């Protein structure tokens, strides 16, 4: 029996398709505007299921849900304000580039890295959009 190589063709996303995606904030997330204009994001932190099971097995009671906090800097707060659940990454990057007078490509890289980091923490998800 031969090992079959994983078919990657279906999962490959072009840059254009990736930039057409629409970032959507997690509904569980709350935000506070701080005095200096930065945004503080508050999000529920769930214990990993196997950790919770281990805790119960060791006799610990279920802990109250914790709240994680993430303070965004000025640039992060600017991008966060642009996440309205309808605007694509490309348009967010363009607006960010214009507001900060950045190169288009540079803004795209900065915005996509930031959204990826937010996604890793579960603060935003990506909805598919229509590529240009």
């Amino acid at each position, binding site marked *: 029996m031969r090992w079959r190589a994983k078919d990657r063709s279906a999962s490959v996303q072009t840059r254009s398709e990736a930039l057409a995606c629409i970032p959507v904030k997690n509904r569980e997330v709350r935000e506070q505007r701080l005095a200096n204009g930065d945004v503080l994001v508050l999000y529920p932190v769930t214990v990993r299921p196997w950790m919770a099971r281990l805790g119960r097995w060791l006799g610990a009671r279920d802990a109250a849900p914790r709240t994680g906090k993430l303070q965004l800097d000025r640039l992060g707060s600017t991008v966060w304000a642009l996440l309205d659940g309808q605007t694509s990454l490309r348009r967010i990057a363009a607006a960010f580039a214009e507001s900060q007078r*950045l190169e288009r490509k*540079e803004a795209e*890289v900065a915005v996509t*890295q930031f959204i990826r980091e937010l996604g890793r923490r579960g603060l935003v998800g990506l909805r598919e959009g229509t590529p240009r």
Partner: protein
Amino acid sequence: MGRDLGFDALRRDSGSGEWKTIAWNGVCFEAPADWEPARIGRRHLLLEAAPGPVMEIKWAAVTGRFSERGQLRSLGGRVARRGAAFRKTALPEDWRAAVKGFDAQGFQWDAGDERAMGALLYCRGCRTASLVQFLERPAAASIARDAARVLASLRDHRSDDRVAWALYDIAALLPARFALDRHRFDAGRFVVEFKGPGRRLTLYRWAPAEVLLRDRSLADFAGAVAGETRLTFRPLAGVAHAAVEGCPPPPVGPVGRLRLRLGMTWSCRLRLWHVAARNRILGMRLEGRRPIDGLEMQTVSEGYAMAGERPFGLGADPQ
């Protein structure tokens, strides 16, 4: 190709909107403004636009006899591994006129979802071989006309012993003795390092300056960039932008002076300037064993600016 592109032309084109100048490690050409570098190597550039990659160029100095057949066979082999059909072709009429200073051979390959048309160019003047290919997707608009203009503007050497550098929003015209060592283009921070005889040069660009200088001065920011080099920063007068320059403390005692004279002390100068109109901070660090004087610092820094910006001093090619 003896035609040179002066620094002023390079700046003018870079900021003009529709087309811009791209210059990297010896090659220089014009490209549509929306073609952005996607991959930057020492002697390799891949440019992309909205649909994907649009142009790739690789170049190298030829040390022995130039073998056009060998180069094309090698390219054909690489392309064939991707399942594409490769063939040598005659150059289109407008391309032939565009590359008349080079020995040129056209080629094409087609991989179904992507196809390319390109040229292998050899400059007898500087013995540099360049492989240029323009990539198209079946659904995308043709870039053949743009390709002819790109090729017509392609230069692989200059006559004034300087090398032009222009990527994204920075442009520099540096003495040829500074060879590219390392480069890093991160969002918000560009660093390009060069090595020269007895000297090390680093060019910086940071953005957005408004955010970086929100709660600290340019001198404080420069101090953070300098790290542990113990430079003393002072504002620079008589320059177009707010600028600071850091110099090492003068040698203390006869031993210190002797160490400096014998080249046992590492000299370093760092200059940063705030291009407020473009929301950028540019920087230049010059290091070496020999002491660095203000004139040397000034001469090199005059050759570095934002693309499309007026030069601080005279930076144009004298030819």
